[in-house]
Each structure stands twice: as structure tokens, then as C-alpha cells.
């Protein structure tokens, strides 16, 4: 029996990837018990007992490495824990730093390096794009209102106004750009990225790098329908050779290790790199559904098992997200609130 902890079980309107990862792992054919790592007693994954046999409230990573690791060790000592699959950006720096320590405790991971993790910053994208031979939308990095106005004058409207790690909003005039700038600064701080809007198809690739320049599979999709938060609701698998080759160059050039999402705009022959996520996206179950079970492969890679490398998925498979509901006993809520576990 392999005991795996999965984080990001907040299956809400801006969902974490944990539920999708757990669904993939359940279909791995391995004998597994999956624990959910939650940050709120209302995280829906806690109540999905068919996926997570146990769930635990975790301390925020900002409380420090010791507190976080103590919680993992508590789980290991009391219930057993072999592998940790992290699915949240906020946990990654701490876990990457602590990966060797976790390994000595018998908790395995399969994470990117810290250098790789830092590539997710949007001000690093031009450098990444140049090294793998793709484009980035014309970009300005701004830290003041004056710089913002100058950037919009240079780029012309519409522009995307983005936080360095999170949030992206389209602006059609200076007033909107200023409002988005202020909102992003108040939430995420400086600097802010201002980017020319590129016309084309929004396509994403989910993948799993082996850390040596190769990979254990890629699946490319086009978003067909997104929510007001910009999250995918329906999508379709595509075979876009340029995009997949660019993703393979990215994995090869940076020797990416672990799960990732490569977000692009494809405009004819041109690929524009928009974002790199250093973990699986929330739609990662789609990969398992089309026969390239990346969550299961990550688990096998973490365990040092032989991992499949085939990724011959069919183009034209649909991904459909939907809402669902369940009924749970108050005793479960009571346990997670009072004991921090259930």
C-alpha cells in the first residue's frame, strides 16, 4: 500500500489541481491510499471520501518550514506517508528547499528545482522564450502610474495588465488600465506587467518532465469555454506540432523536473509564451482521461518506478467540467475544525 498526500483540494470556482490529481492516481492501478492536505475546513476535497480517505488541515507555508514539516511528520508517524504531491505554488519553494530532508524522512517528492520554479515569474518569460525559439507578446514591466501610461502609449490598446505571478486583466483605455494596475498592486504588489494583446488560439500543454531533458508525456488542449475568472470549463485536445515541439524544447532546455503547464497563444505558425505554471493545472485529469495519466506517472517517478513515456492521445477529445454537490455529516466538519483531521 502506497500512501500519498495531495494538496490543492480546494475544488471551488478557482479550483486547485488536487482533486484531478487524486482521480488520476486512483486510476493508476497501484494500490494507494490518498490523503488530502487542506488549508480550510471548507475545502470540498475533505468531504470527498471516495478520493481522499483522510484529510488534514495544514499550516500555511508562510509559518515556516519547521511547522510545515512537523505536520507532515505527524501524518507519517500516525498514518504512514510515502509520497507528497504538491499542487500549489505557495507550497513549492518550501517543499523544494525541504525535498532532501523529506526524502531522509521517507517522504518522496518529484518537484522542479528552485531555479526552474523561478522561471514562472512573468518577467522571466522573454528569456525562456528566446532560449526555446518562441515569441512573447511585447511586454513592459512597470512600477508606477507614469510608467504604466508610457507603456500603454508604446503598446497601444488593448493591453493585458498582469501581476508578476497572478491575475491578468484586459484594458481598453487608460482608465481601465489604471484601475487594473491599482487592484493588482494592492493585492500582489509591484512590479506589474503590461503586455500587448496577441490575437490567436489560446492553447495549453500539461506535461511531466523527467529532470534530464526528456518527459513522461504531454497533452495539448485548446480552451473552448472559460469562467469569469478565466478558468477552463470546457476544452478539446489538439495536435499542434509547433506547440508540442516548443514544449519539448522547453523541457529539454531547462531539464524540467515534475509537472508543469505551458500556456501559449498560437497564431498561425507563431507561438507566444504567456505563462509557465510549475505544477499540474486543475484540468490535469484530462490527461488521464485521454490515456496519458500524468498524475499516476508523477507518483511512479517519485517512487523510482519505471514510468511510461507514450503519449499518443487522440485529438478532438472533449474536457467538460461541471458542478456537483454532496451531503456530509456535521461530525466530519466538527472533526476537521476541532482536530484538524478527519
Amino acid at each position: 500500500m502506497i500512501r500519498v498526500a495531495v494538496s490543492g483540494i480546494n475544488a471551488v470556482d478557482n479550483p486547485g489541481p488536487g482533486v484531478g490529481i487524486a482521480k488520476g492516481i486512483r486510476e493508476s492501478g497501484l494500490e494507494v491510499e490518498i490523503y488530502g492536505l487542506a488549508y480550510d475546513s471548507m475545502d470540498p476535497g475533505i468531504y470527498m471520501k471516495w478520493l481522499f480517505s483522510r484529510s488534514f488541515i495544514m499550516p500555511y507555508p508562510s509559518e515556516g518550514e519547521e511547522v510545515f514539516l512537523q505536520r507532515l511528520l505527524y501524518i507519517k508517524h500516525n498514518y504512514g506517508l510515502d509520497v507528497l504531491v504538491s499542487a500549489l505554488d505557495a507550497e513549492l519553494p518550501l517543499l523544494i528547499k525541504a525535498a532532501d530532508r523529506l526524502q531522509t524522512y521517507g517522504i518522496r517528492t518529484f518537484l522542479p528545482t528552485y531555479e526552474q520554479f523561478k522561471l514562472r515569474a512573468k518577467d522571466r518569460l522573454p528569456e525562456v522564450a528566446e532560449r526555446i525559439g518562441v515569441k512573447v507578446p511585447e511586454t513592459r514591466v512597470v512600477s508606477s502610474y507614469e510608467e504604466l501610461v508610457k507603456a500603454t502609449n508604446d503598446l497601444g490598446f488593448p493591453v493585458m495588465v498582469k501581476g508578476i505571478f497572478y491575475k491578468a486583466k484586459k484594458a481598453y483605455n487608460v482608465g481601465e488600465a489604471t484601475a487594473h494596475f491599482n487592484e493588482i498592486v494592492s493585492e500582489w504588489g509591484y512590479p506589474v506587467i503590461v503586455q500587448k494583446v496577441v490575437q490567436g488560439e489560446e492553447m495549453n500543454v500539461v506535461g511531466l518532465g523527467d529532470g534530464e531533458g526528456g518527459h513522461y508525456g504531454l497533452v495539448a488542449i485548446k480552451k473552448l469555454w472559460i469562467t469569469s475568472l478565466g478558468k477552463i470549463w470546457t476544452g478539446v485536445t489538439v495536435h499542434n506540432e509547433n506547440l508540442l515541439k516548443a514544449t519539448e524544447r522547453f523541457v529539454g532546455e531547462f531539464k524540467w523536473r515534475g509537472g508543469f503547464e505551458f500556456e501559449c497563444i498560437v497564431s498561425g505558425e507563431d507561438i507566444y509564451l504567456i505563462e509557465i505554471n510549475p505544477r499540474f493545472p486543475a484540468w490535469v485529469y484530462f490527461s488521464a482521461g485521454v490515456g496519458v495519466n500524468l498524475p499516476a506517472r508523477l507518483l511512479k517517478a517519485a517512487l523510482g518506478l519505471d514510468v511510461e513515456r507514450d503519449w499518443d492521445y487522440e485529438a478532438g477529445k472533449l474536457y467538460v467540467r461541471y458542478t456537483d454537490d454532496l451531503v456530509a455529516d456535521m461530525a466530519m466538519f466538527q472533526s476537521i475544525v476541532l482536530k484538524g483531521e478527519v
Partner: protein
Amino acid sequence: MKTGGKLMKLAISDEGFIFDPETGNSYTTNPTGLLILRMLKEGKGEEEIVKALTEEFGAEEEEARRDLYDFLEQLRAYGLVEGV
């Protein structure tokens, strides 16, 4: 008729549903469009397609030719054929 490589990659169903595996875009067409698309994929020329349209749908030659041009213009606008 030279249409470019894109057309060969399209998945076209008997019901007239077209899926572009490179972009993820899908389209629908009527039996006339379906016949034209199939013949283009087979590398058939303008005269052959016009003849098939008159035979299959009982259209006048001039009307069939105009429909073919209109349809090709639409395909070009969607980026599904080049040149032509």
C-alpha cells in the same frame, strides 16, 4: 486545385461536422459543402467539382460555380485552405 496541407488534416464526418486537430476549432457544413470538401481533399479540380454539384444537386452550372467560389472564400477566411 491547390489547397494546402491544412485541408488534409481536417477530420470531416459524414454529417458535415469538421474538426481541425491543430487549432481545436470545429465547424458545420451542409451536404453541398461536404461534397466540395471531400472532392478538394481528393485533389479534384474546379471543373470536376462543378460537374459533381450539378449532377448531385441538380444545380445549373453557373450557380454551382458561384457556390463553389463562395464556399472556397469562406474556407479561406477560416484559414482552412491556402491559395486556391
